[in-house]
């Protein structure tokens, strides 16, 4: 299982970077999302995989009794997910704005910060 997950993480990284290198702005953001997912999975994998033992203390007990999943990577990932959502939605709105102003989402046509003369 861990091996397949590791391969998937690699795949997510590769496809994320590949999409970021494309000319389309939309593809760029999709690539960013895939890369983010890859990173989250990697951190998750590093914490060790524990099946069906969430780190939740039952209502009766005061401490966790048996083996449970490490909550620290989960907390990290939770933060990462939320932050990346903020960034993604900003990027999406930015794409829309770019498209309205420039009429294109091809990055080769918008690679200058100068205003064009025409």
């Amino acid at each position: 299982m861990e091996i397949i997950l590791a391969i998937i993480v690699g795949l997510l990284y590769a496809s994320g970077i590949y999409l970021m290198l494309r000319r389309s702005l939309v593809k760029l953001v999709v690539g960013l999302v895939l890369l983010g997912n890859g990173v989250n999975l990697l951190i998750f994998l590093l914490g060790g995989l524990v099946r069906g033992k969430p780190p939740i203390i039952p209502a009766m007990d005061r401490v966790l009794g048996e083996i449970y999943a490490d909550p620290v990577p989960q907390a990290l990932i939770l933060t990462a997910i939320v932050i990346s959502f903020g960034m993604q939605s900003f990027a999406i709105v930015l794409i829309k704005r770019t498209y309205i102003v420039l009429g294109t989402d091809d990055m080769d046509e918008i690679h200058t910060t100068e205003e064009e003369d025409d």
Partner: protein
Amino acid sequence: MLLAVLSGFIVASIIPLIGKWLKGKWSVVMTMLPLTLFVYFLSLIPSLPADQHLLASYNWVLTMGINLSFLVDGLSLLFALMITGIGVLVFLYTSAYMKGDAYLDRFYGYLSLFMGAMLGMVLSDNIFTLFVFWELTSISSFFLIGYKNESTASRKSALIALAVTGLGGFFLLAAFAMLGTIAGTYSIQEMIGSGDQLKEHPAYLPIMVCLFFAAFSKSAQFPLHFWLPGAMKAPTPVSTYLHSATMVKAGIYLLARFTPVLGNVPEWNNTLLIVGGFTMLYAAFHAIFKKDLKEILAYSTISALGMLVFLLGLGTSEALLAMLVFIVVHALYKATLFLVTGIIDHQTGTRDTTVLSGLRKVMLPVAIAGGLAMLSNSGIPPTIGFVGKDLVYASTLSSEGFAIIMTVVAVITNILLLYASVLAGIKPFAGKLPSTLENTRLPEWRLWLPPLVLGIAGLVLGFFPHILEGGILGPALNALVPSAAEFHLQLWHGFNFVLALSAITIAGGLLLYRFFKPGTGASAILAKLHKTSPENIAHLFNRNFRVFATRWTSVLQNGYLRIYILTIVFFLTALMAYKSMTKVVVSVNLNKVSPLTSTELVVMSILIIAIIYAVYTPSRLSAIAAMGVIGYCVCLIYVFYSAPDLAMTQFAIDTLTVILFVLVLYRFPNTSTIQVGRSGYVTVWFHWFLDRWLPS
């Protein structure tokens, strides 16, 4: 003492507040600042016996050993008096010369700033304080050269001057850092004690080179001299004050100050001799071909600075005395000539020597000042210039080895300088007054008094040279050579070889002036030579560097995001690959791998397929749908491995992202309804999938 040094800065910072008031007729009041300081420094002379000095120290950056420690010995007092003394006259002169200028207050601010910086520099004992003040003089010089900021040439000259002197400052810092580390102290006085240790240290040569570079850039020695003629774009008071009398002597001061610490080593002396000797010949030769009064003076200033460096290179007690006298002499006559030039420019509107003549009829006091300065410059008795020149010849003659060559070089330079001084000090006033200049009037007293005072001072000091020797030159020489013998300055030494040399110089110069007229042929040759001059090389370097920088930038900053990403990813991957190949041992422990269930296998297969689909699909919307699928699959993986909170968040956010995307992309072209439907179908299918497996 601290107040004396900082007063320039204090005044400069107050000026913006009282600027309006100052621009009117009250500008003369500014003269009080240098005058007060001049009197203060004069009052220090009696408390300065030959072998003693005053030290005042204030803590500044304690932890780094950087103190505001000021040292008054003969050398620094000589410079301080020069700075404030000429400052008085320049401030007075400015109030009339710049009358009605819109930014007169600003100008005075810069001048005060400069004066403060210069005083701080010559009085500092701590090398880093010295460095700070050194840089401040460069900066205030930049502001003053670029004062007429609406002129392109003026801005350009200011930049060149700042670039050259700033580069020098960089080398100075390097030299000081090395010096301070090796000597273990930042105090120059304490360094003198460890001078021998410094001279034998392997880092001696780098220190020397850096120090020379700094001094040569400031004092306009070949090949770093070219900023000085450009700096003449500044208003004349600035040229007088900074670029002839004081700032350019900062380099000389630096060399003189470190002579007791690092001097008397063959490399030190020979480098100074060669650079100084070449500069004085080169610049004097150039001076005689110029037609603009200010340019003539600029080149003759460079030449005089070359002579000072040359004398420092000789390094004997006699030569150093000659240098000290020559500093005073030069400051007096060159300031006079510059002020006279300023008056001529101010009154007639031209500085062309071929046009100007006969001005003595309309401005006699100025003509007298010019004539006195020329006499002093030419070393004609009974001026102080004669005393100075005598000392120069005496010291070249008595030097060991190559005495003849050195004397010949000095004589030729002086002949050429004499020619230049006649051109600047006599020619505009002699002869017939052309009709075009007949309307010229004598300016007000604030303009003609300062040069006259300086000219007369040169004459008085010539008659009574002992005014200088006991009070100030003795301690100054002692600061350079602790074991210096007693000396007496004299106007008349009797008939000897030195006098003969002086006679040759004067006769040669006058004959040259009588018979030599720079023709067009000579100018053409000079124009050819200009191609190989350091100035031109620096310009070429500057231009090519800019072209190179533009190209380099367009390679690195090409504006294509994917190139940036590619570069970053490539280097990151390369780094990690290197690290993992050299240091990391990769091993897979198959025993600890958790088993794979069928549902997980299905989810992962879907995940992989979705990834591949997202990459290869040509449609934007399908790519987004695939992205949603990937998100949900990741969500399921969280579910399987005991992270329910992550799963919930991932689910919510993935849904939101996809919706947002679709809403935005709805406006984009190339999105057919089929694609929307298909991705909608996929999404719905995954909803079902999620619902199905979530309870387990």
